[in-house]
């Protein structure tokens, strides 16, 4: 039990709550120190189970380690540090607490040795991330967060149902490799895939993330989807379905991002795209592919956070979010521009950046398996990444046209966070050995061969050519693109409204006929028994005696007949 006090995730969550009581320099110091402490503790976690707790009749393992879990816990800690540095001047007091709590819960998932612990931290993550979105404090953010929460509650229920079924069947709560062979395992897989942003419910991600504050989106981009990649790597490596789900995500992200105008929504679609590469890698299932998926998750967290920091800086300094309102910012925001470009080159897997040394392992795994169609699709998608994120984001935000805006670069801590992540992007690209050393399997891959560099440059630069040749076609418009969320944002509500309208009309009609029936009955009663009614009128006594005599005579006559 005492070893639980050194659980990196719990330390981060406790630190996050402590932040609520602190102000000024002390708050900043704790916000930066706690992720560093968590990183240190992650590297003290040995292989195997560290702590165990009894719960019902189960022996939980809330803290356990191996190479895969330490890899993800490491990057989550680094991300928490970089994100906290960037978010120090966020005015909303709740956001940083929620974000670090969320990061701690994500680390909790990666260090969980059993399914119940995974589930608990999984749900804590959903709460933390929802609070991050709430912290934006706007109406659209609040509504988006409720949709986000509903979807993640659904995912949590799927996961819980699957875990319960699995425990009922096997009696084991161990988090190990599953096969997608029973309904329980399908439910677990569905719960995992929902958080990865896989179809059919990818829309929650581009719906919710861009509504968070300028700093909130940076945190959101890192944890939920990459925790999903982690649990897929552990639970479902080599599941063929994941190859197709991943390829769908890759192209979904590109096509929707091409049509998008909001700079942070472009990057949100691009998260789905990048996680698609990882999910495909998990589906391919070879050591090369799994290493590639894990390495790509590591690299992706850094460059995507960097891109969103750059977009967040623009949002903070200009208060504008659409490409149509932006442009020409390179003049007055040189640091933000350069950092944005480095992030964009990394996501595009340009040689000498982190994306190049990680993503190419997934393509290599497809080539090693002689899977031509998958390899071609991955190559087409790599070209598409450069198109939709690599050039589109920096071009429309920082160059394009002179929007007349001349905002300065953001405050020094935000610049420092961006420079820190830029250095990591290039550092990993130039010298990938430290990353390769902590991957789950031994790495037999040399990223820098002449042929690989040349072919990658061809692929990317000719994509760039297409972008500039077809620039007129790509000009942004004041539009959004419908997605599956239309079903629950438009169709569902309008169906409900339709049904409610009909019900209301039916109730009115029923009420009307009831009242006409009532007035009919009352009218008849009134006619017969009212003051002027036939049966209520006064009659002369003589006429009554006459009628009695007539009736008696009639009776007498009938009696004798």
């Amino acid at each position, binding site marked *: 039990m005492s070893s639980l006090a050194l659980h990196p995730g719990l330390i981060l969550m406790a630190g996050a709550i402590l932040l609520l009581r602190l102000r000024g320099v002390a708050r900043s110091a704790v916000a930066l120190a706690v992720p560093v402490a968590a990183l240190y503790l992650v590297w003290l976690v040995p292989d195997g189970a560290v702590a165990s707790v009894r719960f019902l009749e189960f022996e939980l393992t809330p803290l356990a380690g191996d190479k895969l879990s330490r890899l993800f816990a490491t990057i989550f800690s680094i991300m928490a540090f970089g994100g906290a540095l960037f978010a120090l001047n966020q005015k909303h007091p709740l956001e940083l607490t929620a974000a670090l709590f969320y990061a701690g819960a994500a680390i909790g998932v990666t260090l969980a040795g059993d399914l119940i612990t995974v589930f608990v931290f999984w749900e804590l993550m959903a709460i933390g991330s929802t609070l991050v979105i709430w912290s934006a404090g706007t109406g659209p953010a609040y509504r988006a967060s409720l949709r986000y929460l509903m979807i993640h509650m659904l995912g949590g229920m799927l996961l819980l149902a699957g875990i319960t079924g699995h425990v009922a069947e096997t009696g084991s709560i161990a988090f190990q490799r599953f096969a997608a062979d029973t309904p329980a395992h399908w439910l677990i897989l569905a719960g995992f895939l929902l958080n990865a942003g896989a179809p059919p419910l990818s829309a929650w991600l581009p719906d919710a993330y861009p509504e968070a504050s300028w700093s909130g989106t940076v945190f959101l981009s890192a944890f939920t989807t990459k925790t999903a990649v982690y649990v897929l790597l552990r639970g479902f490596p080599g599941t063929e379905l994941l190859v197709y789900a991943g390829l769908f995500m890759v192209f979904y992200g590109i096509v929707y991002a091409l049509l998008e105008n909001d700079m942070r929504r472009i990057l949100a679609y691009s998260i789905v795209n990048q996680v698609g590469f990882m999910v495909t890698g998990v589906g391919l299932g070879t050591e090369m592919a799994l290493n590639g998926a894990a390495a790509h998750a590591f690299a992706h967290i850094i460059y995507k956070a960097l891109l969103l920091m750059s977009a967040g800086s623009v949002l903070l300094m200009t208060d504008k979010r659409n490409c149509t309102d932006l442009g020409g910012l390179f003049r007055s925001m040189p640091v933000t521009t350069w950092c944005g470009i480095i992030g964009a080159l990394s996501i595009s897997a340009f040689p000498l950046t982190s994306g190049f040394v990680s993503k190419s392992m997934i393509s290599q795994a497809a080539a090693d398996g002689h899977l031509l169609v998958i390899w071609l699709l991955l*190559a087409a998608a790599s*070209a598409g990444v450069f198109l939709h994120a690599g050039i589109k984001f920096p071009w429309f935000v920082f160059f394009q046209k002179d929007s007349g805006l001349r905002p300065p670069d953001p405050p020094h801590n935000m610049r420092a966070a961006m420079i820190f992540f830029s250095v990591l992007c290039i550092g990993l690209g130039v010298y990938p050995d430290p990353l390769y050393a902590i991957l789950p399997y031994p790495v037999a891959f040399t990223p820098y*061969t002449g042929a690989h560099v040349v072919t*990658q440059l061809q692929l990317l630069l*000719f*994509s760039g050519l297409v972008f500039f040749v077809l620039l007129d076609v790509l000009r942004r418009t004041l*539009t959004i693109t419908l997605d599956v969320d239309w079903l629950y944002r*438009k169709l569902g*509500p309008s169906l409900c409204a339709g049904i409610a309208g009909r019900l209301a009309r039916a109730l009115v009609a029923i009420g009307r006929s009831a009242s006409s029936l009532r007035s009919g009955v009352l009218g008849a009663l009134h006619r017969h028994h009212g003051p002027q009614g036939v049966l209520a009128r006064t009659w002369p006594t003589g006429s009554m005696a006459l009628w009695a005599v007539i009736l008696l005579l009639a009776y007498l006559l009938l009696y004798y007949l």
Partner: protein
Amino acid sequence: MMQPHWLTRRETIRLLWIVFAVVLAATVIAELFVAHEAHFEIETILGFNAWFGLLACAGLIAFAKLLGVLLKRHERYYEGGDE
């Protein structure tokens, strides 16, 4: 009148296009001088990645435009509905 930023001047942009064209050609020519490590037949065609990237991007843009015709709505589309 204020001088435009050097990067946005017409001459600079023309120069950038020339440099870009030279670099594009260089990446294709360089293929002749590096050891090939093709896994598939199709990769051995000269400049495979160049024209494949070009066609893939053109195809993606065409598909996106097509999808846009069906699915694009005004940016305030949802604001009436889910308030």
